[in-house]
């Protein structure tokens, strides 16, 4: 039992979990409105869209990949789906085509990174421009409203009082966490992120796995796009702007690194939860809008500092001063 506690405490996700709990407790005392079903649901609903993207981004970043285009892909698939719906296409068909577009974009990103060997940052950053641009082009800069009510129902119905987006997000997180932590197939991405050359020689289909990770990221961004469109009842041209940075930050807070080889869906979810909590707290506490940006940054920094201090203590002397390797691959 004691050992079990020690093991949990050693988990990468533990510190961030503690931080989330502390914020929650503090908020419970600071605002009577915080711990109400309404607020919790509002909080979860608010982060559900990004939480969907976070699942796939975790997998991608564990593999050592990186996707700056998710926000634009979300906007583009949202606009595309809305366009199809307005053309009178059946809902299921429009949604499926929307998802297929997302997956295809992921495939294109993956192709350039894995097969052509482009830098993931530049590749997906050009994607960020390209798909935002395509969104502008197909919408003519107009937000697209007037979607069928049945479609809007997807994002707006409740089951046992909980809105569908929340349910979808939590489900995907649960499945993602189980698969990434335990399935043989997805374990492979850790090896790829840990040492790509060694993974290749270990018989892992590195290129294929990398492409798949990009495809999944595109697909999940599209899913988030569809859920968002149905929730807002409209496709917004600016939707998802800056989302990539929030999602990537959440994944890193949750224990992943830009070098790959580490991270977990649970950790990333805690990361996005923490960021949602901060926003929620600020609005509940009535922080001036001029201070909010500052507070978001300061809290984020505090969280990672606490996290790091916790880790250092945890590892104890394991960290040899002045000889902490930066990453797996940098040892000559």
């Amino acid at each position, binding site marked *: 039992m004691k050992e079990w506690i020690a093991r949990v405490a050693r988990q990468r996700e533990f510190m961030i979990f503690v931080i989330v709990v502390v914020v929650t407790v503090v908020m419970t005392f600071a605002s009577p409105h915080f711990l109400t079903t309404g607020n919790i649901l509002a909080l979860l609903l608010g982060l559900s869209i990004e939480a969907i993207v976070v699942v796939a981004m975790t997998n991608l970043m564990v593999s050592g990949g990186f996707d700056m285009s998710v926000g634009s892909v979300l906007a583009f698939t949202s606009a595309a789906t809305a366009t199809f719906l307005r053309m009178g296409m059946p809902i299921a068909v429009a949604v499926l085509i929307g998802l297929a577009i997302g997956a295809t974009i992921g495939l294109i990103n993956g192709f350039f990174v894995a097969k052509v060997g482009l830098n993931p940052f530049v590749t997906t950053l050009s994607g960020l421009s390209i798909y935002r641009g395509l969104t502008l082009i197909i919408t003519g800069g107009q937000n697209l409203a007037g979607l069928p009510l049945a479609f809007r129902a997807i994002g707006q119905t409740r089951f046992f009082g909980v809105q569908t987006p929340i349910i979808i997000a939590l489900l995907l997180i649960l499945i993602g966490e189980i698969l990434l932590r335990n399935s043989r197939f997805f374990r492979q991405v850790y090896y790829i992120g840990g040492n790509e050359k060694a993974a290749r*020689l270990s018989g892992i289909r590195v290129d294929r796995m990398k492409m798949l990770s990009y495809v999944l990221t595109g697909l999940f961004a599209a899913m988030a796009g569809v859920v968002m469109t149905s929730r807002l009842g409209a496709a917004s041209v600016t939707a998802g702007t800056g989302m990539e940075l929030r999602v990537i930050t959440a994944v890193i807070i949750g224990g992943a690194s830009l070098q790959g080889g580490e991270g977990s869906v649970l950790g990333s979810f805690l990361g996005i939860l923490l960021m949602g909590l901060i926003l929620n707290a600020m609005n509940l506490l009535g922080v001036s809008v001029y201070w909010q940006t500052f507070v978001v940054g300061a809290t984020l920094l505090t969280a990672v500092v606490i996290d790091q201090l916790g880790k250092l203590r945890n590892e*104890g002397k394991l960290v040899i001063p002045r000889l902490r390797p930066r990453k797996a691959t940098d040892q000559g």
Partner: protein
Amino acid sequence: MTDIILEARGIVKTFPGVRALDGVDLKVQRGEVHALVGENGAGKSTLMLVLGAIHKPDEGEIFVEGRPVSVSSPHDANEQGISIVFQELSLVPSLSIAENVFANRQPVNMINMLDRRTLHRQTREMLRLFDLDRLDPATLVKDLSISNQQVVEILKAMSINPKVLILDEPTSSLTESEVEQLFINIRKLKEEKGISFIYISHHLPEIFRIADSVTVLRDGKKVCDADVKGIDEEFLITNMVGRKIENMYGHREETDTVGDVLFEARGISRGDDFRDVSFSVRSGEIVGFSGLVGAGRTEVGRAIFGAEPIDAGELLMEGKPLSIRKPEEAIARGIGYLSEDRKSQGLFLDFSIKANLIANHLQDFCGGTPFMQSRKVNDYSRGCVRDYRIISRNIDQQLKFLSGGNQQKVLVGTWFGIKPRLLIVDEPTRGVDVGAKSEIYMLLRRLARNGVGIIMISSDLMEILGVSDRIMVMQAGRVVGEISGRDATEERVIAMAAGTVNGGGEA
């Protein structure tokens, strides 16, 4: 000349769960080569890292020329005249040979700008020490073979004109001729400049060729020190391992039968890397590949494994043509390849021992389900740690915290784990101590006895001669000779590899 230039007294160094050094003393005389031997994980590298001020000792003192010194950074140690050739290469792959050799000490002009001309000239002079002045000093280190990288590492340590030069397994990736060159340089520096050396190696014969005195470590303690003149190899082994080792190479027994041809390569070529290479491996046979640096053995091994393409020729497995374009296809057909470059191509240093041990056969731990079963993984890994005598705290230890030899044992375990039919091992005992070496040979032999064909690429001639049933010698990308294990002698193999025998005339 009996003055002591470097002395360590009562050095203690602990890592979580490990007492790596436990009150070690070491005395190095001026102008001597002092060997340091011990099993994998005995604490040799740790001691050197303490001397080089990379680790801070928990207890103990260090004296240079009789004065107690407190060095707090590698920079200070260099100032004190202590320079290290690290066991784990410490080069910057993306920089040139010249910039690596003269790291942070590049010649500059009046305004502190690099003087590249002088830098390259000086580098070329250093390279000449190893007959490598045909290499362009501007070549990036990542484009060099492992053995040339090792040479650069040595040159880098030599370039600071140290009083004490520490060589931590410098020969583990050098071939015979380079070892020879290294020894010539060591003797020259010793005699002409009075430089002292601490020399760590698992190749015990080398100790007797180069060292004047020796210290033996076991489990972080000093066991004994002695003058090399008065002792023999057996003495060292007994002190290191605590027992005698017989039949080091696990010679084949008469009852072992070699089966049919298992694998065959017919005239495979790729560009200038290797040309028209043909050979066969029978099941139960260990075929050794010998040759000088860059002879192309590694390239052939990687090509068979599908890690790199083949331009021409064909491969056959049990007489049937074999098409392999990727490592996963090779593994699926029962072919394994243990890389010579364990750090960058073989292992996942940030991952645990168990994660490494299962990396190339994950599916074996799923029991037919899509999910990994941690019980299976743990049981298997504990078994491996026991079988291969991997010294570590537990199976969750990150690999980067293991000693070099123990990392190599994990690598060996990884590839034995896939139950191969044909196993290519490239420098399989790099950095492994004598005890563990003989265990690896036993394991190879046992594998062969079970009908596995083995290709062993090695630059260790004794190992080639001791283990192989048949020896292929390569030179400049071609197979220049084939000798049966029984007929092979050191001289014959060397002569062939150097191209003075058997018409290996070109290049």
